[in-house]
C-alpha cells in the first residue's frame, strides 16, 4: 500500500456518523463543569501522607500520589448527562468509542490547586452566573473545594512556595517583608507573565514507545534499569516510573471492568457487543503493545488522560499522530479489518474526547485573555527523519475529521515542505481553511527545521518536530521546551525607555527599572536604541529570574513521573524531566507587541530624529494626551507613506524588525535555564495582545490608549495595503531568530462565487510566503480567518446565531462567541485581504462594532 492511496483526498463522501453527530451536538450544548475529583483525591492523599509543607517532594512521592489518584478515579465509560447553558442537566444520547474522560464530567474543568486553582475561590458561589464563560459547579462541590481542598493549599501552591523561596533567598525571612521585585512586576501584569505559576505543560509526549512496547514494557525496562542503577535517586526514579505506569494500567483495567459490568446490565445485543469490545480494548491497552488502529488510539487516549492528571491542561500537545499511528492504520486497512468510515468515526470520537475539558480561568483571565481552550495541538504532514515526504492516508483522514468536527480542540497544525510534499496536499490544506474558516495552521518545514537546527537540535530531531500549544515547534517526545515560560510585553520596554524607567500604568514617580535618560537627552536615534536595549535587557533579566525561581520551585515539589515515562531521555538518564531528563531542555519566551514596537521605533526614527517634525518630549506629551488635539501628528504617524511601517517592504521598518528580533534573541540567548537548556524566542500572543493592550496607553505608532496590540508577528492592522509586501516583510526575518514559533494572522475575504479561483490564489499566497528568498528560509507559519467582516459584526450582536463560529486568535483556535469584546474587536479590525486583487479591503479603524 502506498502512503497515499486515497482517490479523493478530500474524502468528500465521509460524513459525521449518527453517533458522532449526537456527541457533537451534546458537546456544543454543554457548559463546562468544575471537577472536584482530582483535587479531592490529590488533597486527601497529600494530607494523609504528610506531603503538605514538605520542602521537597521526590518523583517517587509524586508517582505514588498519581497512582493513588488513577486507581481511585471513578471509571466513567460513558457520560449519560451533560449540563446545558440553563445549568440544567440534559441527556447525552450516544456513547463514545473511547472510555474514560479527562475529568469526571462530560465537559469538565480540571482543577489544579497546586497551581492557580485557588484563584477561583472567591468566585465559587457565583461562578455559574458569571458574565463570561460560566462554569457549572454543584453546591456540594463548593463545600468540597472551600472546606476540604483549598485550605490545604494556602501555603503550598507553586506560586506561594516560589514567593517564600525568593523572600528567603533575599532576606532570610519568608514573610513579613516586601515581596521580591520580580513577583511585584508579575502582579502588575503589564510587564511580563510567566506561565510556571500555572503549569509547565507545553510539550509533546512520545507515544511511539508505548504503542510499540506497552506500559508493561516501560515498567520492565524501568525495573531492569533500577536494578543496575548506582545512585539512590536514580533507583527511586525508576521505581517512580513503574509506580506511575501501574497507576495508568489500573485505570484502564477499571474502565474495562466497568464496561463489562454495563454490558451485563443491557439486553440490547448491539450495545452489549459494543461494551464488550470496549472492555477488551481497555484490558489490552495501554498495558500491552497496540495491535490495531483502535487499540493505538485508545493507548493514546488513556495515556493522555493520565498526563492531564499530572500536568495542567495548558498547551499539552499530541504531536504527529498521523506518523505514530500510521502503521497500525495501514495494517488494519490492508487486512480488511478497518474501513475508512470506521477510521473516521474513531478519529471524530477521539477529537471530541480530546476536547472534553477547558482550563480553569478566573473572571479576570476571561476578561483579559479569555476564550482559550486547552490548546492541544496535533501536527500532520511534513517530512520524516530522513527528509522524505511523510504525508500519508492517515494525514488526510485527520484533516477530514477536523473539517467535519470544527472543534476548538484539538488544534490542527499542518506541516508543508515545498518540493517534497505534494502540491495537492497544500491545496487540500487551503481548501479546509476555506471550509472551516480557521484551520489548520500551516507551517513551513524548511524554515522551522532551519530554526531548530540553529538552536542545536540535530537534523533528525528537527525534522521530527511537532507543534506545541499554539505554534511552537519542538521535536516530538524529546523537547521539554516550556514554550510559554516568559510572555514579555515588548511595548513596556518601549514605555520604560520613553519614560526613563517609569511606566504610565504604575504611575509617575515610581521607578520601575533604571534611569536610561530623559526623553530630551537623546541626541540621536542610536542613543535612543541604546537606552531601549538597556531597558530590554533589564526586563529580560527580571522575567528570566522569576522563571528560574519558579523552575527551581518545580524541582522542589513538582516532578512529573508520568510525563517523564512517556518521553525520550528520562529513562536513559535516570532523571525526571524537571531535572533536565529530556534530550532537549530549552525554555521559551514569546514577545507581545512586536509590530507595534517596530512601527513605534520607525516613527521615532523618522518623525523625531530624521525629519525633526516633533521633539521627543513633545511626542510624549501627545502620547499622554492620547493624541487628543494632535490630529495632524496622528495622521502622519498612521500614514505608511509618511512613516515607515513593518509589512510594506520598507527597508527602514523591516531593518528595525530584524534588529529587534536579533537583539531579543541575543538577550535571551545569554541565559541558561535551571534544566541546563537555553531560551528560545518566539512571536505568538494568544489573546495577550488584547489583554496587554487594554492596560497600555498610547504608543508612537499612532495606537491610542487601551487599543489592542497586534497579534503575533503580524504587521499592524490597517497600514499594510499589499498582501504580497506584507508577506515578504514577515518572511524576510531569519527563522533562526524565531525558534519558539511565530503566529502570522491573515484574514481573507471569502469569495464563494469564485471559489476555485480563490483557492488558486490562496495556495499561491502560501507558496509565495514559504518560498525562500535568496539566503533565507521563507516564512515560518501562517494562519487564517476566512469569514466575512459582516459575519463577525453580526456574531458580536447575535452570538446565539454563531455557536460554532471558529476563529484563529494568535496561535490557537477559539469560538468567536467565547472571546472577550476587545479580542472580538481585534479580529474584526485585522487587515482583510481580497485574494483576487491582493489588496487590503477598505479598512475603517472605528472600534465601534463591539
Amino acid at each position, binding site marked *: 500500500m502506498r502512503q497515499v492511496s486515497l482517490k479523493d483526498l478530500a474524502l468528500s463522501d465521509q460524513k459525521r456518523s449518527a453517533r458522532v453527530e449526537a456527541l457533537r451536538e451534546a458537546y456544543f450544548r454543554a457548559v463546562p463543569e468544575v471537577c472536584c475529583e482530582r483535587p479531592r483525591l490529590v488533597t486527601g492523599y497529600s494530607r494523609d501522607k504528610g506531603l503538605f509543607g514538605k520542602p521537597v517532594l521526590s518523583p517517587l512521592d509524586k508517582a505514588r500520589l498519581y497512582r493513588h489518584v488513577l486507581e481511585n478515579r471513578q471509571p466513567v465509560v460513558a457520560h449519560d448527562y451533560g449540563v446545558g447553558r440553563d445549568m440544567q442537566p440534559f441527556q447525552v444520547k450516544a456513547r463514545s468509542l473511547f472510555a474514560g474522560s479527562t475529568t469526571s464530567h462530560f465537559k469538565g474543568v480540571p482543577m489544579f490547586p497546586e497551581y492557580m486553582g*485557588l*484563584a477561583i*475561590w*472567591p*468566585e*465559587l*458561589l*457565583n461562578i455559574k452566573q*458569571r*458574565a*463570561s464563560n460560566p462554569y457549572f459547579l454543584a453546591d456540594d462541590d463548593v*463545600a468540597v473545594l*472551600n*472546606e476540604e481542598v*483549598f*485550605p490545604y*493549599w*494556602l*501555603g503550598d*501552591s507553586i*506560586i*506561594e512556595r516560589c*514567593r517564600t523561596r525568593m523572600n528567603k533567598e533575599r532576606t532570610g525571612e519568608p*514573610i*513579613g517583608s*516586601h*515581596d521580591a521585585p520580580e513577583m511585584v512586576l508579575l*502582579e*502588575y*501584569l503589564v510587564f511580563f507573565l510567566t506561565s510556571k505559576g500555572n503549569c509547565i505543560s507545553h510539550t509533546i509526549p512520545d507515544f511511539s514507545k508505548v504503542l510499540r512496547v506497552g506500559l508493561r514494557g516501560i515498567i520492565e525496562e524501568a525495573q531492569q534499569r533500577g536494578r543496575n542503577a548506582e545512585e539512590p535517586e536514580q533507583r527511586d526514579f525508576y521505581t517512580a516510573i513503574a509506580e506511575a505506569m501501574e497507576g495508568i494500567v489500573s485505570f484502564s483495567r477499571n474502565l474495562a471492568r466497568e464496561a463489562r459490568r454495563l454490558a451485563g446490565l443491557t439486553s440490547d445485543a448491539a450495545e452489549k457487543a459494543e461494551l464488550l469490545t470496549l472492555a477488551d480494548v481497555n484490558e489490552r491497552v495501554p498495558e500491552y503493545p497496540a495491535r490495531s488502529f483502535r487499540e493505538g488510539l485508545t493507548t493514546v487516549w488513556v495515556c493522555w488522560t493520565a498526563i492531564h492528571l499530572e500536568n495542567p491542561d495548558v498547551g499539552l500537545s499530541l504531536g504527529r499522530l498521523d506518523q505514530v499511528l500510521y502503521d497500525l492504520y495501514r495494517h488494519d486497512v490492508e487486512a480488511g479489518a478497518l474501513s475508512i468510515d470506521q477510521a473516521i468515526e474513531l478519529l471524530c470520537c477521539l477529537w471530541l474526547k480530546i476536547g472534553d475539558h477547558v482550563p480553569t480561568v*478566573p*473572571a*479576570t*483571565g476571561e*476578561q*483579559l485573555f479569555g476564550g482559550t481552550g486547552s490548546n492541544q495541538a496535533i501536527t500532520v504532514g511534513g517530512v520524516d527523519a530522513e527528509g522524505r515526504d511523510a504525508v500519508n492516508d492517515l494525514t488526510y483522514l485527520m484533516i477530514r475529521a477536523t473539517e467535519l468536527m470544527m472543534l476548538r480542540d484539538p488544534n490542527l497544525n499542518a506541516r508543508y515542505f515545498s518540493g517534497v510534499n505534494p502540491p495537492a496536499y497544500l491545496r487540500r490544506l487551503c481548501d479546509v481553511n476555506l471550509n472551516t474558516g480557521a484551520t489548520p495552521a500551516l507551517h513551513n518545514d524548511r524554515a522551522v527545521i532551519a530554526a531548530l537546527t540553529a538552536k542545536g537540535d540535530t537534523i533528525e530531531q528537527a525534522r521530527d518536530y511537532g507543534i506545541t500549544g499554539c505554534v511552537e515547534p519542538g521535536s516530538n517526545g524529546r523537547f521539554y521546551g516550556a514554550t510559554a515560560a516568559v510572555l514579555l510585553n515588548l511595548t513596556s520596554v518601549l514605555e520604560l525607555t520613553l519614560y526613563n524607567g517609569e511606566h504610565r*500604568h*504604575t*504611575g509617575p514617580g515610581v521607578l520601575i527599572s533604571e534611569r536610561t535618560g530623559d526623553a530630551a537627552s537623546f541626541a540621536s536615534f542610536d542613543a535612543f536604541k541604546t537606552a531601549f536595549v538597556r531597558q530590554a535587557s533589564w526586563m529580560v533579566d527580571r522575567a528570566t529570574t522569576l522563571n528560574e525561581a519558579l523552575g527551581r520551585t518545580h524541582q522542589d515539589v513538582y516532578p512529573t513521573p508520568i510525563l517523564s515515562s512517556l518521553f525520550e531521555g528520562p529513562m536513559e538518564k535516570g532523571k525526571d524531566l524537571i531535572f533536565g531528563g529530556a534530550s532537549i531542555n530549552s525554555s521559551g519566551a514569546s514577545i507581545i507587541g512586536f509590530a507595534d514596537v517596530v512601527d513605534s521605533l520607525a516613527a521615532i526614527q523618522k518623525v523625531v530624529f530624521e525629519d525633526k517634525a516633533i521633539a521627543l518630549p513633545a511626542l510624549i506629551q501627545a502620547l499622554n494626551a492620547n493624541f487628543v488635539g494632535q490630529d495632524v501628528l496622528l495622521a502622519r504617524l498612521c500614514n505608511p507613506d509618511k512613516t515607515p511601517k513593518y509589512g510594506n517592504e520598507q527597508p527602514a521598518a523591516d531593518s528595525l524588525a530584524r534588529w529587534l528580533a536579533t537583539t531579543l534573541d541575543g538577550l535571551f540567548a545569554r541565559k541558561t535555564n535551571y534544566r541546563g537548556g537555553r531560551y528560545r524566542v518566539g512571536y505568538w500572543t494568544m489573546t495577550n495582545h488584547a489583554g496587554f493592550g487594554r*492596560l497600555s496607553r498610547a504608543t508612537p505608532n499612532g495606537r491610542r490608549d487601551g487599543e489592542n496590540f497586534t497579534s503575533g508577528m503580524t504587521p499592524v492592522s490597517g497600514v499594510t495595503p499589499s498582501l504580497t509586501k506584507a508577506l515578504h516583510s514577515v518572511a524576510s526575518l531569519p527563522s533562526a531568530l524565531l525558534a519558539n514559533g511565530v503566529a502570522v494572522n491573515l484574514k481573507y475575504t471569502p469569495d464563494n462565487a469564485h471559489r476555485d479561483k480563490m483557492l488558486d490564489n490562496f495556495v499561491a499566497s502560501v507558496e509565495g510566503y514559504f518560498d525562500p528568498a535568496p539566503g533565507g528560509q521563507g516564512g515560518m507559519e501562517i494562519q487564517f480567518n476566512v469569514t466575512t467582516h459582516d459575519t463577525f459584526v453580526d456574531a458580536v450582536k447575535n452570538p446565539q446565531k454563531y455557536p460554532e463560529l471558529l476563529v484563529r486568535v494568535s496561535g490557537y483556535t477559539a469560538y468567536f462567541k467565547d472571546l472577550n469584546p476587545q479580542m472580538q474587536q481585534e479580529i474584526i479590525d485585522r487587515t482583510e485581504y481580497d485574494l483576487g486583487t491582493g489588496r487590503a479591503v477598505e479598512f475603517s479603524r472605528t472600534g465601534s462594532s463591539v
Partner: protein
Amino acid sequence: MTRVKHFLFKLLSWFLPDRIARRLMRKEIEDLQRALEGTLTDKFLEILLGGMGLAFLLLRGFRRNLAGFSGRYLFRTADGTVAAGARFASGHMHVLHEADNAYDVAVTFKDPAALRKFLFSKDQDILASILVNEVSVDGNLNYIYKFGFMARDLVNRLGVA
C-alpha cells in the same frame, strides 16, 4: 466584645435558626447594605470586618470557614489614613483597629471604595482591581482568595445584594 459575650453568642448560635440570627444582626446588615451601595463608603472596612466577626459568632454555617484556618490580614490605604486588620486562629476572628505589620497578606488600597470593588466586584473578581492599580497586595495572594470567598459567603447568607 467581652469574652463572656463572645461565648454566649457562640453558644446561642447552636440553637438559633439563621433567620433569627439575621434579625439580631439587623443593624449590621443595614450598614453593610449601605456600604456596598456606596453610601457608607468611608466605613466600609470597619463595617465589613465587624459584620464578619459577628456573623462568625451567630451563623453556624458561616463558621465552617474558620475550621482549621489561621491567617493574619492587614488592610490599609497608601497614605495610612485607614488601617485595620483581622486575625483568624483557633476558630475565632479578631478584628484589629490598627496596623499590625506581622501579616500573611497586606492589602493596600487607594480608598475604601477601591477596597469595596476589590472584594465585591460583579464577578467576585479580585484580580481586576489589581490590574487597574487601585489595589496592591503584598504577601500570600491565596489568603485574599480565601477572604474573597468569605466576604461573598457573608453577603449571601445575610441576604445583602
